[in-house]
């Protein structure tokens, strides 16, 4: 197990009291696995990534039975220990890549920063030279051939896709074991998205790098994804093997998402309207008690005011009192 998260709860103090923005989230990622986390914006999926990276400030209260990366407890690290993991074994790329590049430094300067000292040998000048060579290599690896032009460019001169490639180059500088990709392509055109996904899949295949992909659209995930976790309003709804989960969703939320996405379009009569999930996502101030999907769920019954536990059936997991598509097991 590369990443092991058990019952992660992240709370924030609001004027009306403490709110669990994320509630008892479970997430496991194995070595060499691509795992996709799907949820609407505001569902708290980025919060998970930030908790892993240690980006959350003191105003967030993090609690977990386990938040481990390999044998390291990510919740109890000194700054120095964290630096030995973050940027080394765990790397991250972001949505809106351009804003994650320093506007006043050239691409070369920013990439050189990502090359770790421990990967270099020799004196100061030798290291400097190696650093520069590494940067060129990195650019080639993400498919940028015109490296001399690119090296002297500033972020404002790049396209969104190129900026994301630079971020990827920076992230893979040390061949991380886990790459967290927080909606890396949500602002891109489909063609550029495919390019970025191809790049990620390539590194996955070549280095056995695990990827935690975060996406808000079930229709825009990497086709190589082995596992899916559906998150809604801070609760994990369902997780499991991608194929099985999409073919036989156990959870009403997954079912609804599948119906609204283009995924099942072929099964619908032509020109029919997309069915949508009634209502809107609850705000953090007015979270429903029990199952947070309750007010919008077509299958809800009185029992749903109790928070459903996370049940496991083989390698599938779901949190619902009335799961779907389970008849054959019963």
């Amino acid at each position, binding site marked *: 197990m590369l990443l092991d998260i058990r019952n992660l709860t992240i709370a924030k103090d609001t004027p009306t009291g403490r709110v669990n923005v994320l509630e008892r989230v479970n997430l496991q990622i194995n070595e060499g696995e691509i795992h996709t986390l799907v949820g609407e914006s505001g569902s708290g999926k980025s919060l998970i990534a930030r908790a892993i990276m240690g980006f959350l400030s003191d105003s967030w209260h993090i609690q977990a039975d386990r938040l481990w990366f390999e044998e390291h407890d990510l919740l109890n690290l000194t700054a120095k220990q964290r630096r030995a993991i973050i940027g080394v074994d765990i790397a991250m790329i972001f949505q809106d890549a351009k804003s994650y590049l320093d506007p006043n430094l050239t691409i070369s300067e920013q990439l050189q*920063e990502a090359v770790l000292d421990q990967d270099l040998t020799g004196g100061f000048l030798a290291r400097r030279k190696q650093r520069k060579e590494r940067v060129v290599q990195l650019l080639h690896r993400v498919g940028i051939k015109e490296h001399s032009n690119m090296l002297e460019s500033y972020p404002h001169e790049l396209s969104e896709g190129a900026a994301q490639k630079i971020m990827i180059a920076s992230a893979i500088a040390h061949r991380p074991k886990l790459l967290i990709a927080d909606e890396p392509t949500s602002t891109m055109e489909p063609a550029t998205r495919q390019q970025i996904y191809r790049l990620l899949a390539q590194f996955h295949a070549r280095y056995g790098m695990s990827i935690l992909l975060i996406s808000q659209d079930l229709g825009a995930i990497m086709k190589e994804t082995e596992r899916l976790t559906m998150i809604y309003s801070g609760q994990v709804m369902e997780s499991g093997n991608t194929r099985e989960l999409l073919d036989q969703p156990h959870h009403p939320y997954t079912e609804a998402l599948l119906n609204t996405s283009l995924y099942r379009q072929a099964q619908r009569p032509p020109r029919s309207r997309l069915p949508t999930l009634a209502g809107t996502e609850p705000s953090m101030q007015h979270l429903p008690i029990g199952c947070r999907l309750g007010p919008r769920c077509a299958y809800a019954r009185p029992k749903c005011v109790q928070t459903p536990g996370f049940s496991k059936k083989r390698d599938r997991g779901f949190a619902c009192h009335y799961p779907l598509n389970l008849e054959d097991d019963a």
Partner: protein
Amino acid sequence: MSRYLLRQLSLLLVTLWLLTLLAFSLGHWFSGDFITNTSGIFPEDIRFAETAEARAAEAGIVNQYTAYLGHLFRGDWGLSLLDGEPVFEQIALRFGATLEIALIAFVIAIVLGIPLGVLAALYFRKAVDHTILTISLSGYSIPVFWFAQIAILIIAIQWGLVPIAGQINPLYEITPRSGSIILDILLEQPEHMTEALHSAFLHMILPVCILAIMPMMLIIRLMRNSMLDVLSQNYITSGYAKGLSIARVLWNHALPNAMQHVMRQIGALISLLITNTMIIEVIFSWPGLGSWLVRSIYERDYPVIQGGLLVISAVILLITIALNIFHAWRYPQVRKDLYGAN
């Protein structure tokens, strides 16, 4: 970049030209005789006829202006109406004295203000931040002249730690050459050089410190705000994502970007500094441009007013343009955004 440079330079030339036009017009607008106003030679003087001829008194306004420009470029800026001293030489001499305290105060303001601003931002809403903010707010709201009077009253008179006024104890008999007292002492090489430097230092300490306060408070607040803004930017997060230490994120990413905002305000800061320098010079009888100009305004010493205004405006202008060019050179994306030039 070269296109931008050209634009800034042409802006500089045009503005300088307008300035000479204004200074020239002042000679006509002031009460009294135009020739006397610009040359400092009274009609009773035997040189008057000759001067009137040289300044094209009868030859129409255009010729007068060209004659004025000619005198301006030759460094013949007239004589002071009060003491008959040549204005240009006086300016050259006093400019050094002004520059000396203004520059030292500015350096102090930067050297102390920037770290304090950064510190306040790093401890946002903690005790350190509150303390720094309170001090900077009160320091900023206290008027300079009041501050100076109180400081003289307590530190110079009550405690007798430093002298009240002047540049140096006159017993050292330093001949003014550059106007800057420290440079002058070093040039003169007097017998008791260490003592002379010590005396100059004591004279300087109070005006310089008081002068530094206001710009420093401003820099603290500018730096704090821009640092807070920068620290919330995504590229700071990506610095941490690369596994950089806090120190390196601050040094490589946060500081340079925060400085960019501060640099943009430095021009305004320098104008403020120059105004305050004048006040300080008057209070501490510092023989600089400011005290001289203030006196000239009281005494209607027209040639001095003309020359002094020209110089001070030109200096502010030069600094502004230099800062603009520096900004565009240092921050490429600004150049792109604002002027579409490379």
